């Protein structure tokens, strides 16, 4: 072994890690110095003392040299430029499906005013989807181009099995489960046979139902106005327009003022591209039809109620952040979409 090799080795060292390796090479348990000490056995007795001293000397020199180098490297390290603008350590970032945020937000908003969330069948009998909602046989919504039917024997009592085309089927289920007062929200998957840039065969619906003594239109209006201001912002307003649904009377379409043009219908004297003359359609709603109450075993002379149905997807896409051109991306599993949320 060339005993002077260590000097060159240590001089070449560029960082503490390399120095640590050298330290082990020379001074480690199985390092060169220890090996040399072990070799003392083979050295003739009269030379043993001199040999030992010599090795001790070298060991000290190496230790000294390493110490010096370490100080030098430490010093270099300390004066190295510290850049606090570098990014921090990377932690894993997963994502929710964007609808998860919307649904959590909706639930929170309604929980604060005493509504509880329930869950009812998504594969349902015709009876709950239609009859119980005042839609007798022959009603257009029951056509097989409006509803998915399951290949299953018909029930004598409840008719055919369907994929629930709306969450309103939960209205009768809720009335069967509990007597008034009712304050219910139901968010679930719903299904209809449409598949294009603005429709998916599976989507979500969000149903609200309130039944009690003395419930009137002002309660429905107040609740929806509260929701819109919480979800879209204080500056947004609603309007109710006449509409027709079999299971409510009177029935309304609910519009929310457009966030892009501020409800004016135009931006810089050009027609707003987002809305219809300043308004966006948000939901259908109305006072629960007396036939629907009756079929739920509730006396319409004693109780009245309101109901509404929203699309969480639509609510989501009406927010500023979410301008989605093709709704099908929501259920595509596309990672470059999902990981953004």
């Amino acid at each position, binding site marked *: 072994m060339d005993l002077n090799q260590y000097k060159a080795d240590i001089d070449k060292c560029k960082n503490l890690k390399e120095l640590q390796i050298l330290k082990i090479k020379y001074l480690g348990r199985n390092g060169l110095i220890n090996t040399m000490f072990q070799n003392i056995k083979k050295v003739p007795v009269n030379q043993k003392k001199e040999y030992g001293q010599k090795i001790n000397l070298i060991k000290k020199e190496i230790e000294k040299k390493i110490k010096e180098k370490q100080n030098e490297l430490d010093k270099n390290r300390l004066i190295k430029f510290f850049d606090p603008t570098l990014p921090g350590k990377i932690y*894993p970032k*997963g*994502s*929710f*499906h964007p*609808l998860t945020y919307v649904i959590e937000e909706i*639930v929170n908003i309604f929980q604060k*005013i*005493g509504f*509880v*969330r*329930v*869950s009812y*069948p*998504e*594969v*349902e009998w015709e009876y709950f989807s239609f009859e119980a909602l005042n839609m007798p046989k*022959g009603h257009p919504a029951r*056509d097989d*181009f409006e509803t*998915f039917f*399951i*290949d299953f*024997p018909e029930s004598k009592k409840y008719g055919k099995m369907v994929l629930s085309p709306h969450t309103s089927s939960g209205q009768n289920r809720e009335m069967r*489960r509990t007597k008034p007062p009712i*304050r219910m929200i139901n968010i679930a*998957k719903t*299904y209809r*046979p*449409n598949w294009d840039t603005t429709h*998916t*065969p*599976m989507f979500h619906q969000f149903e609200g139902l*309130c039944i*009690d003594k*003395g*419930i*009137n*239109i*002002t*309660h429905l*209006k*107040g609740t929806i*106005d509260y929701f819109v201001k919480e979800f879209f912002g204080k500056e947004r307003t609603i309007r*109710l327009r*006449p509409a*027709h649904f079999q299971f409510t*009377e*009177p029935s*309304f379409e609910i519009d929310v003022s457009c966030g892009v043009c501020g409800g004016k219908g135009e931006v810089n004297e050009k027609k707003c591209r987002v809305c219809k*003359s300043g308004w966006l359609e948000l939901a259908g709603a109305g*006072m629960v*039809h007396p036939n629907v109450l009756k079929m739920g075993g509730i006396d319409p002379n004693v109780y*009245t109620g*309101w109901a509404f149905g929203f699309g969480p997807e639509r609510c989501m896409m009406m927010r500023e952040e979410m301008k989605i051109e093709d709704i099908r991306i929501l*259920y*595509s*599993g596309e*990672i470059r979409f*999902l990981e953004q949320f």
Partner: protein
Amino acid sequence: MNIKLTYNWILDFLETDANPFEIQKYLSLAGPSIERVEKFEDDYVFDIEIISNRIDTASAFGIVQEASAILPFFGKKVKIKNNPFETFKFSRIQKLKLTTDYKLNVLIKENDLCSRFTAIVLDNIEIKPSPDFIQKRLKAAGIKVINNVVDISNYLMLTLGQPTHTFDFDRIANVDKKSATMIMRAAKKGEKIFTLDGNEVKLPGSDIVIEDGKGRLIDLCGIIGGENSCVTEKTKTIILFVQTYNKQKIRKTTMTTGVRTLAASYFEKGLDEERVETALVFGVKLLEKYASAKIASQIYDFYQTPYQKKEVKTTFSFFEKIMGVKISKKTILQILNSLGFKTKVDNEKIKVLVPHFRKYDINIPEDLIEEVARIYGYNNLPNNFSPPAKILQPKEFEKVFQIIFKIKHFLKHLGLNEVINYSMISKKMIEEWGLEKDNPFKIKNSISKEIEYLRTSLLPSLYKNIKDNEGKKDVFKFFEIAKVYLPRPNDLPIEEYRLAVAVNTDFFDLKGILEALFLELNIDAFELPKIIKKNNVFLTEINLSFLIENYKLLPKFKQINPYAVIKLDKTFTLSKNLTFAKIKEKSFQSSYLDKIEVLSLFKNNLTLRFYYSAKDRNLTEEEAKKELKKV
């Protein structure tokens, strides 16, 4: 359904000081929504959305009726003029001395096809372009201009809301040239008709059609006329044909054949039979004026059940009960009367007589509330919260939503991506995953092979998610929480919430995710769910009810041990006979062992760290070593 009409068209029947934009704003709030107003030459076009049970408003005169009730509430003056219901009565054309040269042999084979059938023959027809104002209005309405006879037919539809049709009499006449036969019947399945737009339509069966007595179909009623009977440039004599049909039959035919016409969207909503008379007479008047028509037959009118007076009873207080504000009796009556309802008051009670054009949509007192509330103005009602009530969420719902919330948040923060897939999958996926054994539900009327069966497992979708995304990134970690639908006999399926996780990394990555999740939910003493490997993907699926049952809000607190903990490391060479599970089992036979940690695994050499302590004193290193030796 949307229709387009112009401002001037409406002014034919209405005197008002409201401009087009005021009409848009006020009608949208209280009646049919006018989605857009656009300038069209020297006129304005309204794009109007018709409320589905208010087909009576789908015309210039229908809009006028609404406007005359709504506009006064916004301080606008209105007066209806040229009311066609009053102007155009059969008596107006019957009074004339008729040349009854032509005859129709009408046979209606079934009772449920047509609630009113009217027709009249007109001759001396001169085919030419229709007058400018009709052409302009039709263009504004988005309807193709053809000739005076066809244009008048379309113009009638949009003016009165009643579609009409014209046949060329000579093209369907019997050999005597003076009579024609019209047999209205239900079509047989598979019968064919050539329609006037040049297409052949194969009929699904029980559609309403007209046959000419010689076996030829000449009309697909309510939807589109036949090519063999339509008006041409040479037409001299026509039949003006106005009816109302069974709405269900019309809807079924138009939807199954895919032949969608504006006429069909009127008829499928059910039309007012009284208006048939108005449309026929107005039609004759227009054809006389703009096509030099002369009446050449009697009026044929088959009217099964003429309109009977319809009454709805309610009370004044009911309006306040549902609207939530007090409305004066005077206002209630004023609104109802302005909409064409006649009212009789007896103290608190009101009897309301429903006009013929509202007979199908006004049935119960709630319908009258809607009429009064919308004209009074929904926006004039205050916003109130529903009164407070003590409502408890059923525990079973609360638990499901709570655990879903916890799991989603936890997995997201571990770096997983949540996905929502369709509940329906393809037959191919069912077979690939051997799900036939679950007898998954088949959708009878699916619209794509991709979504034909209901999922009984979430795994096929998640596997597909990873495969579809390959190449876009290196590492994928997906999860989904959703219901699967498990069929059972004679009942709705069991809807079971499941959690599924799929990764393309390795077995221990997925195992680690599961262990961390169980720890997060404070589920101890568990057996981990099975992990499946398919190609390079590792997957697992858990019934959520298992997690709900075993979930704890808080873990069990263990007393902190104040005595020394001895840490010892030892390396084992793993083999079939010496697995980690066996080492673990054996080492925990010692009552001093707190836990084991894996330090490293290199090839089959596993280095473990053992933590020993006693509960009542300081354990010595010697004692700990003795314990470890037993392993």
